[in-house]
């Protein structure tokens, strides 16, 4: 088990390292230089050169990369071109806001998706199954900003029951914040529902078809007990993994939803940084997202191994 964990961790670190290079070098292909972007078109060439020298972008790329990644490892994420202050606090605050939105979304999606998938599996091949599967598929392919616009118009403008921005004045109560997050959460839920329902459905169908489910039925257990005790336990295992891998999609969705609902999260921070060519902010933000995703998949893998006795012994061997 310990060996498996170490190997898994090692792979995650290597992937993260490659990711850091991709992120860094993607940020270097830019036409024009940061000094020009920050100081504007009317600044003199010497001022731009001085600024570039001051922030260190006139050094060789490899040196810049090493300095950047070294800083990251020491917890210093660089200095924003736009704000001329350390990137760290901005990222932290934004991650906190995004986490609120993401957690609320997950709290709604996980039970809903699992319930939908299990229900579809129990009515396998019938109208209920077809409609849940097709609706889930359709919902997961509609971009978040499209369903976002529809819910804003429906609940915010036509019915006037919910606020249409996610931003709340500082110091708002938990309930006020929640009220502002309901509309933004709906597009995220819609996109992820289909994936989770599909996994839960596939897992349940497989478990319903298994020998142990048949044995349980044959020994006279009631259907409800068979499903609860035998089928669901086995069916939900793969679903756990998929929920973690969906974190990536969730974060992608956050960029859009935070923009549409004017919410100060990591997605909007990255978008603003991208538009302003604020590369330290952009790189730190994207790398943070990569780390969050890596950690989520790692936890899912470990959880999956711990919960599955067969894999547990294989991993130990």
């Amino acid at each position, binding site marked *: 088990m310990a060996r498996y964990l170490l190997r898994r961790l090692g792979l995650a670190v*290597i*992937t*993260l390292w*490659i*990711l850091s290079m*991709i*992120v860094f070098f*993607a*940020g*270097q*292909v*830019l*036409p024009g230089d940061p000094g020009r972007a920050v100081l504007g078109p009317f600044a003199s060439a010497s001022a731009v050169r001085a600024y570039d020298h001051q922030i260190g972008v006139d050094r060789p790329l490899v040196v810049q990369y090493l300095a950047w990644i070294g800083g990251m490892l020491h917890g210093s994420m660089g200095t924003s071109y736009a704000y001329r202050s350390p990137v760290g606090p901005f990222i932290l605050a934004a991650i906190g806001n995004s986490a609120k939105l993401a957690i609320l979304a997950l709290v709604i999606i996980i039970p809903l998706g699992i319930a939908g998938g299990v229900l579809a599996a129990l009515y396998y091949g019938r109208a209920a199954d077809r409609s849940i599967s*097709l609706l889930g*598929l*359709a919902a997961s*392919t*509609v*971009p*978040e*900003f*499209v*369903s976002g*616009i*529809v819910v*804003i*118009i429906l609940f*915010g*403008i*036509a019915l006037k029951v919910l606020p*249409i921005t996610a931003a709340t004045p500082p110091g708002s109560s938990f309930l006020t914040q929640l009220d502002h997050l309901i509309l933004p959460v709906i597009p995220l839920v819609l996109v992820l529902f289909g994936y989770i329902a599909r996994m839960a459905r596939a897992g349940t169908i497989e478990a319903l078809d298994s020998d142990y489910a048949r044995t349980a039925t044959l020994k006279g257990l009631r259907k409800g007990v068979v499903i609860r005790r035998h089928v669901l336990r086995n069916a939900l295992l793969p679903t756990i993994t998929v929920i973690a891998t969906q974190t*990536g*999609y969730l*974060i*992608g*969705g956050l*960029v*859009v939803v935070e*923009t*549409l609902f004017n919410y100060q999260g990591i997605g909007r921070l*990255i*978008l603003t940084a*991208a*538009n302003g*060519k604020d590369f330290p902010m*952009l790189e730190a933000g*994207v790398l943070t*997202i*990569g780390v969050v*995703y*890596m950690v989520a998949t790692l936890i899912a893998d470990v959880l999956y191994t711990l919960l599955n006795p067969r894999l547990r012994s294989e991993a130990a061997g």
Partner: protein
Amino acid sequence: MTQIAAAPGEVAIGHAIAGPTPPWRLLLRRPGFLIGTGVLAFWVICAIFGGLIAPYDPLAQHLLAKNAAPSSAHLFGTDPLGRDVLSRVIAGARDILLISPLATAIGTVLGTVLGLVMGYFGGLVDTMLGRIVEAVLALPVVIVAFLFIVAVGPSSITLIVVIGFVFTPLIARTVRTAVIVEGQQDYLASARLLGERPGYILFAEILPNVLPVVVVEFTVRLGYAIFAVATLSFLGFGVQQPTPDWGGDIAANYGLLGAGYWWETLFPALAIASLVMALNLVTDAIEQVISA
């Protein structure tokens, strides 16, 4: 009825030759497929003949009639520059329907080649490429895409290349798995024994056998491509204003929702929704027929 009575022998022979009902006939029996194709056909016609169908010039501004609510003159109302929303929705079909398939095609071709190489050679090549693929996949598609778009600047060409590039590892992963399964077949062992060159084995022997996987992958990815193109346009990285574009028009006008001008964003939003749902109905029907 009379046909069967007249030539029973012919029917029996015809059946023996044709075998089971051809797949496209099975498709035509599915209402989902018909509805989906109908809607797709509608948007394709709009994309090609948009200028002829649209009631107004999608770029023409009428500053005296700005933000006008839907009426008989402007069925979908007008935007903040007084442009006809219906005309912009019709003309807006063009870019998304041009960019998405091209991007998917690039991703499919590159991904197939990469997947063939990774699956066939295995070993170090596979491990190294696999790490890079996973690193790219560790980020949401949208974020990878805009990392690149920020670096090169937004345009339709950038969008095509970037989405094609982002799809490459995803498609490569699927093709790689199919190639590994295929690699255990006897015909490959004999090809190798005959001393055929790897290039020939890859493209003339393995590729035709993994082609169904590639085709399904293309149709599924097309849906994601539309998702990505629309999203990136909304974020300001796609087709630039004043060119009519669904995502771009929504981005330009959603700030006015608070003022109650819902028609400027609702109709382009519904256009995107109808396009992706139609594509899904078609993909779903094709998958059902293939797996049946």
